């Protein structure tokens, strides 16, 4: 009984971790290649979720919605990059923080303008409804397993893209030596736009998929954004591998912490005190983990360039 | 013979398989200029970093003014009297030349945690700072932000800052770099007078300056000191000739 519950929570942690990875991969690529802190990445997640919910409601097909989320987030990303972000690459982090903070205000309000203030709901597609049996006799939501699968597939795809393709070579070169690849005639401006749009599409994809588990609403991106930042800082900024390890670590630690800490505390104190203290400690847990990791390894687990 | 002020014994530092510093022993005695020369990539920078405190040696001892300094932070070594200049000028660019020197003076006076007194009217800082700038002939440029100084002037400012820390020894990393013939000549004669104030460990590529200044020369090749001696001894040393000229002598 305890063991199956634990397995279920572990799977939930992995699912959460892979969704964080989709966000973190884009953030870390954008930081690694362009040196940009993008606070507006959470807005792209929100745009993906809204696009999916709107198209799914209009057509009745989750899958069309999912494609719409990719397209909308990538298009929004490319547009933002060309109009605003491009002017920030040479600026210091402080200017980037302010400008992308402003973008959050603009994008959130624009979304409210288009869709209103009420949350939208997105159904799990029929193909992925239902549960599957787990060892030990309990059952697990098929959709969440599908999210784990999709996250893992994206991780592999990104790895192949960066390690095996010409485009990936340019991305890696862009991380280490901007002037050199410009001198070699690579069109660095469009490379940056493509990388930004790619990161945006991943965020939008995550937003759409998570949208079917939660409600789709304004401001849904920011909590995930903060966690994604925690992830890339733990993993080492600029490292996709670090983002994957960091995301799974954060996802599992957070989920299991919420599950185990109250139970653990209840052996020492009264159940109600254990529940409240446990919840307090659990929500702080990943930040404690991050602070510990940075105190020991100030550049994260996989420092870029190592 | 006088006790050396700076003494390295058996210093080694590896990066993976590369021995950047290999069992280096070296000393600096009062009143002398000891030049450290060697081809590019010989490990001069790595050695300087270890003496100054930005790199930790793997093994070996490092003594300065009678005490072991291997565990000390760069700032603590400077406060003990080990002043350094950088290969590429490193100053506070937004500050005026004067304020750069004043920073060194306040550190020497051990009083950076004073929060209220305005340093612009603090004559215990401004007057000695002007005096130091006058010594390197930068007094007229005192109010100019370091960012607007010429390359040569910035090299001089570095030396002024080092002077202001109240050094017992100088660690000068290629002070002639980019100075031009005129500037090098002037700086060489300035440094010649400096040795009586505190001995100088001089890393330099400009051989004319080295031969003019050095009382002793050490030659570093592939992380090892292959010879130490007077200028004439070094010129005649067969191993040094081989390292530099590649001839079979």
């Amino acid at each position, binding site marked *: 009984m305890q063991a199956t519950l634990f397995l279920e929570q572990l799977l939930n942690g992995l699912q959460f971790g892979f969704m964080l990875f989709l966000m973190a991969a884009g953030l870390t690529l954008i930081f690694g290649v362009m040196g940009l802190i993008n*606070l507006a990445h959470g807005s792209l997640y929100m745009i993906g979720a809204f696009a999916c919910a709107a198209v799914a409601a209009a057509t009745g097909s989750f899958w069309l919605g999912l494609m719409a989320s990719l397209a909308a987030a990538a298009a929004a990303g490319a547009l933002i990059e060309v109009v*605003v972000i491009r*002017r920030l690459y040479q*600026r210091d*982090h*402080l*200017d980037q*923080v*302010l*400008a992308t*903070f*402003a*973008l*959050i*205000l*603009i994008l*959130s*309000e624009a979304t*409210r*303008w288009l869709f209103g203030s009420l949350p939208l709901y997105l159904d799990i597609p029929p193909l992925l409804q239902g549960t599957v049996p787990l060892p030990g006799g309990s059952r697990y939501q098929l959709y969440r397993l599908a999210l784990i699968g999709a996250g893992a597939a994206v991780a592999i795809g990104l790895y192949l893209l960066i390690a095996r393709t010409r485009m990936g070579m340019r991305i890696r070169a862009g991380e280490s030596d901007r002037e050199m690849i410009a001198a070699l005639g690579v069109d660095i401006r469009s490379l940056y736009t493509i990388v930004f749009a790619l990161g945006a599409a991943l965020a939008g994809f995550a937003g759409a998929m998570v949208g079917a588990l939660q409600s789709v609403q304004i401001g849904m991106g*920011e909590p995930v954004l903060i966690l994604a*930042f*925690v992830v890339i*800082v733990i993993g080492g900024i600029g490292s996709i591998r670090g983002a994957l390890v960091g995301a799974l670590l954060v996802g599992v630690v957070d989920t299991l912490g919420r599950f185990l800490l109250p139970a653990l505390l209840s052996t020492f104190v009264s159940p109600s005190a254990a529940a*409240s203290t446990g919840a307090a400690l659990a*929500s*702080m847990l990943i*930040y404690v983990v*991050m*602070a510990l990791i*940075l*105190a020991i390894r*100030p*550049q*994260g687990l996989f420092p870029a360039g190592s | 013979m006088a006790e050396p002020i700076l003494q390295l014994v058996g210093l080694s530092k590896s990066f993976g398989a590369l021995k950047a510093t290999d069992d280096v022993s070296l000393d600096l005695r009062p009143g002398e200029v000891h030049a450290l020369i060697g081809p590019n990539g010989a490990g001069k920078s790595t050695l300087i970093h270890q003496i100054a405190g930005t790199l930790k040696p793997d093994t070996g001892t490092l003594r300065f003014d009678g005490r072991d300094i291997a565990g000390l*932070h*760069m*700032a603590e070594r*400077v406060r003990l009297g080990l002043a350094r200049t*950088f290969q590429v000028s*490193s*100053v*506070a*660019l937004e*500050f005026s030349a004067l*304020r*750069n020197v004043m*920073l060194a003076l*306040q*550190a020497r006076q051990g*009083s950076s*945690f*004073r*929060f*209220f007194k*305005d*340093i*612009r009217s603090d004559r215990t*800082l401004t007057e000695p700072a002007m005096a130091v700038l006058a010594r390197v002939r930068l007094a007229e440029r005192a109010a100019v932000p370091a960012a607007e100084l010429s390359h040569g002037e910035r090299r001089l400012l570095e030396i002024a800052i080092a002077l202001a*820390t109240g050094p017992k020894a100088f660690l000068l990393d290629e002070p002639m770099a980019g100075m031009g013939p005129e500037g090098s000549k002037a700086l060489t004669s300035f440094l010649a007078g400096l040795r009586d104030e505190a001995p100088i460990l001089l890393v330099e590529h400009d051989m004319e300056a080295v031969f003019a200044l050095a009382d002793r020369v050490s030659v570093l090749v592939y992380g090892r000191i292959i010879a130490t001696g007077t200028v004439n001894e070094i010129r005649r040393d067969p191993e040094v000739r081989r390292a530099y000229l590649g001839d079979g002598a």
Partner: protein
Amino acid sequence: MARETAFNIVLSVLLVAAPVATSLLGEPFYVTLATRIAILALAAVGLNMALGLGGLVSFGHAAFFGLGGYVAGILAVHAFNMEPMFAGIPGTKLMPVIWLVAIVACALLAFVIGAISLRTSGVYFIMITLAFAQMAFYFAISWPAYGGEDGLSFFVRNNFPGIDTLRPLSFLAICYGLLGLSLVFFHRLQHSRFGSALQAARQNETRLAAVGIRPFHVRLAAFVISAAVTGVAGALFADLNRFVSPSMLSWQMSGELIVLIILGGVGRLYGPVAGATLYVLLEFALGGITERWQFFLGLILLGVVLFARGGVIGVFAGRPRHG
């Protein structure tokens, strides 16, 4: 320099004259607006010591703003209910005592956070300070003793000996007094030996170490001082609203403090004042015109970063000069 001074004087005069005048005309609401400006400016002056002088981009100063707020709220509630806190220590409604406790609490917290965070730099520093503030945020949300997610209300504003703090103009005067003190302090700091070392740490930390000063020590001291000032602002903010909630600890709050400074001009004496004035007025003015005020606020902020580098003061007075 002269133009910057003139700008500072004009802004000071306006900030004093406008609320007094509108209050005489029977529009006390503007007094509250000015009080908000003063408190946010004070918080940002605190942050500006770390960020502007020392180049320490703390994305977690809400932790200190919120801690100051909770100090005020918790002490006030205990005093009101006349029940001692732990170890029999009574609460208090005396502002000076509250400020002192806020300063000590924030300094201690900043010492711990700074000692760990200052081992990192750049983006890592931005993010680790954010992480610490998030810890404080979630702690406040899930700790039920002082209101948890709902926050903590206290019914009467705290007292200041000899001043009726319930009168809006009197409370504004207290806030202006503290803001003025913080500006004098910032100015002295900027030109002191400590300020010199701190600014050198921002420009070139190797150089600072090479004259014999450890950058870490200087930065840690600056971070602690900066946090204490921001904490006092938090206590005042609690008194303004007679309410504290976890939102004072949120990452948006940290972001807003940074925004105020950039909007006004980084490292400028009056940057936080100009930034807070513009921000609060924009929020108010746009809020009066359109429901979509955040959209336009965003556009204006974006315009400032892209086209008005150096913030408002930069536009009026050009680039800063250092002695």
